[in-house]
């Protein structure tokens, strides 16, 4: 059985994709830029950061492109004043929720959050900062998690569970009090499940997860080729 090919428009341009593909996939294949943070190629989509929201003709609501499947005849708008306003607000809220101090951060200059803020023209935060008193867990011999810089995208949780198969990371609490935890909320260094593979560190879009001993701007996240890792795992190779 062949997968049906669907035709839709993105920002007025006629494009096509396979049934079962998301708006994000088809948009990227056709060179449209939709910002993302929680989404990462090779991991299941969480649809939680809401940065990839797009407008769909005939629907008053906004839809996350990373988990919305394409439909025949769909008319998608990836960029508008309204979308830009929402995306800016999301980034500003992320900055105001925790303690993001780019100037002294290990990923300064190569941080996904910082880059998005620059792309969206954010030069100040209009919301008052919460400045929560959050800990840094440096108990692991090689890595550090700084909750002050965590945006709760859960990439670390997903890569650990879905690719490495360790499921060391999870989320405790709810809403703004949510926090990434190792095992049953133990210091990372005491985790009995962590393999020390470092995948979580390299998928983290900010400086929340980094290699111990790195100074300002010294931490570079490496692309891991997750779709490849996933494919060979699924093949049982």
């Amino acid at each position, binding site marked *: 059985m062949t997968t049906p090919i669907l035709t839709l428009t993105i920002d007025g341009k006629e494009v096509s994709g396979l049934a079962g593909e998301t708006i994000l996939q088809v948009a990227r294949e056709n060179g449209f830029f939709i910002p993302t943070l929680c989404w990462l190629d090779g991991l299941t989509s969480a649809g939680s950061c809401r940065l990839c929201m797009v407008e769909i003709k005939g629907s008053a609501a906004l839809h996350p492109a990373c988990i919305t499947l394409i439909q025949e005849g769909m008319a998608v708008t990836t960029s508008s004043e309204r979308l830009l306003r929402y995306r800016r607000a999301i980034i500003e809220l992320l900055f105001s929720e925790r303690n993001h101090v780019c100037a*002294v951060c290990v990923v300064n200059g190569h941080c996904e959050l910082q880059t998005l803020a620059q792309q969206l023209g954010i030069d100040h935060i209009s919301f008052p900062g919460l400045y929560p008193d959050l800990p840094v867990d440096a108990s692991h011999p090689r890595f550090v998690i700084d909750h002050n810089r965590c945006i709760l995208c859960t990439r670390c949780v997903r890569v650990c569970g879905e690719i490495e198969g360790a499921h060391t990371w999870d989320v405790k609490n709810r809403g703004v009090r949510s926090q990434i935890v190792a095992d049953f909320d133990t210091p990372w260094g005491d985790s009995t499940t962590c393999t020390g593979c470092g995948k979580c560190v390299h998928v983290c879009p900010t400086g929340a997860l980094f290699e111990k001993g790195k*100074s300002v701007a*010294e931490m570079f996240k490496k692309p891991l080729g997750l779709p490849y890792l996933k494919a060979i795992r699924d093949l049982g190779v």
Partner: protein
Amino acid sequence: MQKITIAPVTRIEGHARISLFLDDNGTVSDARFQVTQIRGFERFVTGRPFFEMPALTARICGICPVSHQLASAKACDQLLAVTIPAAAVRLRSLLNFGQLVQSHALSFFYLSAPDLLLGMDHPVATRNFFGVAENDPQFARDGIELRRFGQQVIERLAGRRIHPAWVVPGGVSAPLKSAARDEILNELPAMQTLMRNHLKRFRESLGRHQEYADNFGCFPSLFLSLVDNLGRLEHYHGTIRIIDAHGSTIADNLAPASYEEYIGEAIEPWTYLKFPYYRPQGYPEGMYRVGPLARLNVCGCCGTRYADLELNRFRQLATGRPVLSSFHAHYARLIEILYALEMMEQLLADPSVLDPHVRAVAGVNAFEGIGAIEAPRGTLIHHYRVDADGLIEQVNLIIATGHNNLAMNRAILQAARRYISQDRLEEGILNRIEAVIRTFDPCLSCSTHAVGSMPFVIELMGPDGRCLDRVRR
């Protein structure tokens, strides 16, 4: 009792307020130099990984980020418990000299020259760097040129001029490129000539400023600074030596790491700036001065040709004794610039400065580290305690301006007694008191780790506590 307050104090780094108290006879009985802001660096860095400390503490100051980075990195080296590569030590020393040149050039040519060149009674509207530039364009250009050179040394080594992230625990993050070395070396001879000419000019102008030399912070005190193992001028390595007002060494070879044994820190309720003192002499008798004046008084010699020639002339200001007037810190600054330029030449001439091995890598191997260097304004101490994971538990920072706090208060009292004899604050008098403070080149944002530009308030208080006059700028 009457009280005079001067606020804001201008052309210094930070916020300040000066209160002068008059007695029943209308003479000044007390002076208080109050620093009115706090930033809380020592508190909010707790819990952070120590690897961030050089960059975090650099943000204390935009003028001397490099000084904080170096003191911090030296403290962090001790947490790693490593000997850092020799090339890294040379590069760090070079960076410190770049910092010394740019900061001293700023202090002398930009901040103090308006008073020295145009005069204390010059109209306030043009008694600034632009007034200097109009009056003597070449002088202003030279000042800009020197500062540019110092800043460019920092940029050529560390990648950028302000808040570079090059100094790291264990060394520096990248080796020096030979092209950058050659660029610095090529410029050095012209800078040295320029500096020698300005030293000559300043020396010849000293006679005009005798009045200020006699009244600007001219009193006996202890002097404290680092010296090398031969007792020479030293800004990066070394041990602490303390001399008294007669020039006798009262303590020598003190390890910076045991500073708590000989330096106490007193607190007064009216200012955020603490009062360090020499413990054996108690508070406030253990008043000491740090900075360029102290360094030149304390050291046996500079160890470089032209700086030593000039040091000999400097020492003739007080035959056989320490130069006691803080006014001569200006002179000392110029000598130190020359010294830094000569030292840069020496350091860069050694090919090992290009060695690619510039960083020692290690984890936490010790839980306490104390780093000390000579920053442009004086001895700078960073003291950290960390837990087994390398997270900061406790921090104490003693900044040069802090060391000088007791002496600055004394100097203001001396100048106020000399220049104020009524219950009014004349513009020229205010500026003389400001100029006294400026001889210390205080950095209040550093010393209280306090935020701010440069407001200045002076209040004159009568014997009954009534404010007789108040000037705010």
